[in-house]
């Protein structure tokens, strides 16, 4: 079974909490560019970063990242 990330709700969750990309990047310990790349779907984060993002927003990973079977 091959799973692919087809989208995510990082931007919606971030803006919903009134955070800038830089603030979220600081909390995650990554660059602002990386947060932007994740939001626009150019970069799929590692499991560790995906879990960190989900925990930060108080959600499950699959609520943050839309994963589908290829």
């Amino acid at each position, binding site marked *: 079974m091959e799973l692919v990330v087809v989208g995510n709700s990082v931007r919606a969750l971030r803006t919903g909490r009134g955070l800038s990309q830089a603030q979220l990047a600081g909390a995650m*310990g*990554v*660059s*602002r*560019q*990386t947060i932007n*790349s994740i939001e626009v779907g150019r*970069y799929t*984060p*590692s499991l*560790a*970063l995906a879990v960190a993002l989900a925990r930060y927003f108080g959600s499950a990973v699959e609520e943050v990242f839309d994963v589908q079977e290829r």
Partner: protein
Amino acid sequence: MSRNASAGNAERAAARRRLYYWSTPALSAVFGVVFLLAFLAGGHPLTGWLALGFMLVLAAGSALLGRFSETVKGLMDRGDERIVAIDQRAITGAAMALVLVLIGGAIVELARGHSGAPFTWLAAVFGLTYLATLTVLRLRG
């Protein structure tokens, strides 16, 4: 995970990043001194001092640029997984270019009736290093 343990991990990660960050300018400065010594030994003191100056400018420049550029900072402190991944892909691309040069150089040297050196043994070093790294990483899982 407790809050104390989490804070400890974050502090260790920050210390590791600082170490990585400053290792680039420090290594540049060390290599500058090594180049100077090599040029002095070879009887070219002026070139040696120029090489040291260049490496010190590179050291200061990288330390300064890391303050302004997220990409440079990520390359230096290895703290951003995406930039580390980009760096690894760039290294792979550069290695492929090097392999092509080594193979091309060896072919030209062999066609000229020479032994193929130094291209052949450089290619051997590359290939053996790759196989050794592959084996170690494979065994480590």
